[in-house]
């Protein structure tokens, strides 16, 4: 057989080195080519990760047993001998960029699995990679500071079982640097500065929301094949909004990253919510941020965590016990006694606050004319059980009021208590809040509650003191809500609203606060819908197709209304006509729809639908193994289902 010269560029020889020519015959297999190549370079190194990349055809020659002939390689082919794993800058859901090695030769689906294994993210099938949205403004100097986190040295392990070491997967425990990476992954970040939010791209309409979905990479092709170069930036995001088998015990990173993605979706108005919901989201973010911060301090010795928490709970138990014995022994319940100003708004009266001697006992407030009268009959006794408690506070005006709405058979009684100072306010407020839930001052959460209120007040103080120049470390309420509310409210107005919502969540632990956040997010009507601009067959205008985990939604752009929904479980079959790039779906009852995609690749839409169907086939039992073939079968679009 005739020998001919094959031109191969070896990347490791440097960018300027000339390509190597090797003499081959058509029946030489790829492995032989590589062997010859390595011999000719005279370079001693581990070549095991290297493979041949055929540039013109944009494909890898990975089957070492195939002959050049079988691969279709002829003398005109320009091959590149390069490593399969390359560094990638990964934009994480929390906004941090992490540099790490990823496989550029396997299908993206498998690459994501490998990335997630390193990051300790379970259920990688729910995530995927997409090309990032360009930043709005040109950045001058920020690039260098961004690349704080680097995991390129960490090898991609094959084993799926992760041994824990110091409370984190072993490969993170190597050095302080990698430990820091793990902390970044598993602990939610402090809320961003409002300017940072404002700088980022925000979709203004459904049409805008379709853009992000045009960027998803094809899961069945490799990164190289899709034009991704070494050191390129890609985003890693949760793509399918069905979160299987979420378990806080194993899913520290997954929960945190999901929370971050949800938080950014809300801050960037990617998903719409009402004002009430936004305040609750804000309160939860504040709470989570605060708890994460305090967790940081302890986490220096993660191994001690368990012991510590065990000790803590023991302590709580002891305290609780001693409390109850105290109670048994002297039978006196603690109470608050003080002069407070009381105001009962009534129609057509302009009476102001009047000072009384108030006593807080059990779950009620009794008030008397003065402290001398306190042994007599109170003027009135208010039982706060089941009442609504709202703060009415202005630090600037030194106003510390508690607004009580006490239910009564005739309606609600509105009463204001005015306290003198912060300390008094936080004590009485905490007592009122507990009482509204039927708890007394004896409850162990009381001291905690007092402290919570004080910290919130101090937060407001920092807002008032320096409304213009905000330091980075002080938490800013504006960073908790989307820019729309920056415009609508001043921080002074916003803080009490968030404070109000905060009362309902202040008792939550870090994990339950995150779970609550995710729950509310998932309960939003638009949750989990990914939008695509499509044109239905026979229609002359563009419409939006929403893809959710159980249905397709047709949205009329003119009115912005849902026109029709089709559920997957009525779906008979779907296929793609790759020539005219049109998707056709048949539903039960002879309903046929067909559409072509306007701005996204047809494959993306197809993969989205197939992906959701794949997700629904997962069951609890087989949670460990992933049927990759089924995924490709459902999303590949080659055979009709």
């Amino acid at each position, binding site marked *: 057989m005739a020998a001919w010269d094959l031109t191969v560029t070896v990347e490791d020889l440097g960018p300027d080195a000339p390509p190597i020519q090797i003499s081959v015959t058509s029946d030489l297999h790829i492995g032989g080519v590589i062997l010859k190549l390595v011999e000719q370079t005279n370079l001693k190194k581990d070549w095991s990760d290297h493979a041949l990349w055929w540039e013109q055809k944009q494909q890898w020659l990975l089957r070492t047993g195939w002959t050049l002939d079988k691969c279709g390689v002829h003398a005109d082919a320009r091959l590149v001998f390069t490593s399969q794993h390359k560094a990638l800058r990964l934009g994480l859901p929390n906004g941090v960029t992490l540099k790490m090695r990823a496989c550029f030769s396997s299908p993206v689906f498998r690459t994501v699995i490998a990335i997630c294994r390193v990051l300790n993210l379970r259920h990688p099938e729910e995530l995927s990679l997409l090309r990032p949205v360009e930043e709005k403004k040109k950045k001058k100097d920020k690039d260098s500071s961004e690349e704080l986190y680097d995991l390129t040295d960490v090898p991609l392990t094959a084993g799926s079982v992760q041994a824990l070491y110091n409370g984190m997967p072993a490969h993170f425990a190597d050095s302080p640097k990698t430990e820091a990476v793990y902390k970044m992954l598993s602990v939610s970040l402090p809320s961003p500065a409002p300017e940072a939010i404002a700088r980022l791209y925000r979709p203004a309409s459904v049409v805008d929301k379709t853009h992000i979905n045009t960027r998803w990479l094809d899961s069945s092709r490799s990164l190289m094949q899709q034009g991704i170069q070494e050191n390129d930036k890609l985003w890693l995001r949760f793509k399918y909004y069905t*979160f299987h088998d979420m378990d806080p015990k194993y899913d520290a990173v997954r929960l945190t990253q999901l929370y971050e993605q949800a938080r950014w979706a809300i801050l960037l108005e990617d998903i*719409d*919510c009402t004002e009430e919901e936004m305040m*609750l989201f804000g309160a939860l973010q504040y709470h989570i941020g605060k708890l994460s911060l305090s967790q940081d301090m302890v986490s220096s010795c993660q191994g001690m965590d368990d012991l510590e928490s065990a000790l803590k709970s023991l302590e709580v138990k002891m305290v609780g016990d001693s409390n109850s014995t105290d109670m*048994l022994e002297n039978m006196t319940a603690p109470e608050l006694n003080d002069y407070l100003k009381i105001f009962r708004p009534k129609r057509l009266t302009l009476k102001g606050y009047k000072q009384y001697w108030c006593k807080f006992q059990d779950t009620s407030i009794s008030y008397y004319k003065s402290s001398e009268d306190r042994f007599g009959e109170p003027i009135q006794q208010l039982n706060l059980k*089941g009442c609504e408690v709202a703060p009415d506070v202005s630090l600037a005006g030194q106003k510390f009021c508690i607004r009580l709405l006490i239910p009564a058979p005739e309606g609600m009684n509105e009463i204001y208590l005015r306290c003198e100072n912060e300390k008094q306010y936080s004590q009485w407020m905490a007592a009122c809040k507990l009482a509204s839930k039927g708890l007394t001052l004896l409850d162990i959460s009381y001291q905690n509650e007092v402290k919570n209120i004080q910290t919130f007040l101090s937060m407001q103080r920092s807002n008032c003191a320096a409304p213009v120049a905000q330091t980075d470390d002080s938490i800013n309420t504006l960073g908790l809500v989307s820019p729309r509310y920056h415009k609508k409210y001043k921080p002074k107005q916003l803080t009490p609203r968030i404070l109000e919502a905060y009362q309902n969540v202040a008792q939550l632990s870090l994990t339950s606060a995150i779970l609550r956040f995710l729950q509310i997010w998932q309960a*939003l*009507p638009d949750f989990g819908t990914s939008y695509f601009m499509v044109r239905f067959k026979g229609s002359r205008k563009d419409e939006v197709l929403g893809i959710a985990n159980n249905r397709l939604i047709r949205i009329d752009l003119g009115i912005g209304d849902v026109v029709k929904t089709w559920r997957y*479980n009525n779906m008979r079959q779907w296929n793609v006509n790759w020539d005219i790039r049109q998707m056709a779906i048949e539903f039960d009852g002879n309903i046929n729809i067909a559409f072509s995609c306007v701005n996204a690749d047809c494959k993306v839409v197809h993969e989205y639908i197939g992906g959701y169907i794949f997700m629904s086939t997962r069951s609890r039992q087989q949670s460990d193994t992933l049927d990759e073939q089924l995924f490709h079968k459902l999303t590949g679009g080659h055979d009709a289902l």
Partner: protein
Amino acid sequence: MDDIDAMFSDMLQEMDLLTQSLGEEAESAPLPKPSTIPGPQEMNFSVGFTDFNASLHNLEDNDLDALMADLVADISATEEKFATEKDTSKGSAPVAPIPSQPQSNFSLPASNDTSRHATFSNSIAAPPPPPASKPSKDELEEQVKADKIKLALEKLKEAKVKKLVVKVEITDGSSKTLMVDERQTVRDVIDNLFEKTHCDCNVDWSVCETNPDLQTERGFEDHENIVEPLSTWTRDTENKVIFQEKKDKYEVFRNPQNFYMWKKEKQSLKDMKEKDKEQLLEENFCGASVIVPDLEGVLYLKEDGKKSWKQRYFLLRASGLYYSPKGKTKASRDLVCLVQFDNVNVYYCKEYRIKYKAPTDHCFILKHPQIQKESQYIKFLCCDDEWIMTLWVTGIRIAKYGKQLYDNHKAAVRKAAGSATWANRTIQASSSPSTPSPTPKAKAANGHAPQPAVETKGSSNQTSFPPPPPSMETLPPPPPDPMLPPPPPAPPSTTKVNKFPPPPQFPQSSFPPPPMDDLPPPPPPPPEDSELPPDFLPPPPPFFSSCGGEALPPPPPDPMASLPPPPPAPQNFASSGGAPPPPPPPPPPPAPAPAANKPAGSIRKVAPPPPKRTTPQLAAPSGGNLMSELMTAMQKKRTQ
């Protein structure tokens, strides 16, 4: 240590006094309030009656009886505890409230009570020093001390429990009076009512409250605590508790498509496959968060005490009820929140066209449960038709209760299925009343439950029914029995035995009395508890009727224990006071009964069919009966 000891005895003494006074009260007043037991802090009396006497007049005799039964059970439970603590025969003194009602369908404490007491007494029964030959005093004292502490703690818990007497109206015009305590959920109450009425026990039965002032009605959710909403009623309230079928209670789980796909034509949804319905439910109720139906549409709103009704475009979200203000889009950011659901309940309204000039009569309101009269804090809403109203009210319930509703429904279905099985069985059994107790079956059943300690199990065995169907496992054993149709051929439940003690010889000789099988292996030296010191034995009847079977100390070693109550038993009972009052007119067992038994070759002391009883409530968790039977036997022995 001494201090604590002293403290405890002080406390116990105090409680003792309390109960004693209660006992007196019980004797003087026909109907001592159970709520007095708990002690001074929790004096919560019956709801809905302005004047207590008046309310008593309202009650029918059988109400009184039933109530009395509950009450006696309660008192005696307390009593029992004292008995143990005091270790004296004191117990016999204080309480002997014999309801002198002529017609007594004395039923043992309702199942809930039973279980509760059971747990309690079991805990005491645990360390049983054989009483017969008193062991070393020290050990005993040690034990007693420990028991005392346990008891005192139990008692403290018990004392804090708030109890109410509630009259429940039933749609057929009758009514039942129940005692409910704050640990009971609505589900418990419904189960209780299933026992006491002959309804078909389907999932739609609900306990509702009505408010005549506001003309509202709300079905309590099964998981709710029954006492809570009731305690928000005012003293002079005319509110009522009604037991009725409400189709909309769980309609969303029968036809989820009508709620979750409400925009589609109902006709097209009519024949949705069961499988699809299930999937729909799973999607919406089993995810990380419950999905609320995406209801939206025009409703009329009357708010803030205004008189007029305004049309607004409403949207339901998990976080609350919103409307879009005039001239704005219905985008989330523009929505105005009318109300969030944390502090309000949703109520159906009646005849608001007249009362409030509403556009239609299909109105519902949202209000804080404590608000009982018209107020500006109530949100009034009015819908075009009944279906829309159901849609919104159900949607709001889903938003408010979330997955709890789904769980409630599942529990209800299980219950209903269980009752259905039992109902069938009862019918079966009653169809052949002459041969009621097939021995083999009984044996089989006994075989099933080898652990004698579990009284409840024993109780189900005791009935002459075939061994419980598999579905029974999910059911708490007692409820089904009461399902008996009114004049059932009576599984030889001991209540009846008490009333018509069968001829003594007959059971004794013919077979090993089945109950014995359930008992701890014939205890040679019966592990008698400290709480049952022999001298205490002639116990105040309430004692045994209440603590009844549940924890009963195993019988005395005496083989005679297996004896059925001796013939004179009835008198025995009567004299012993608190026991089920002597069966009024019904004379000792009609002859045919035993005769019927014999041929059947059944071992059981089959009580003759009770004289026709109009009330179905032969509640009697039979564990209690068994025990009381034993008690009689013991008593008898003692007197001999």
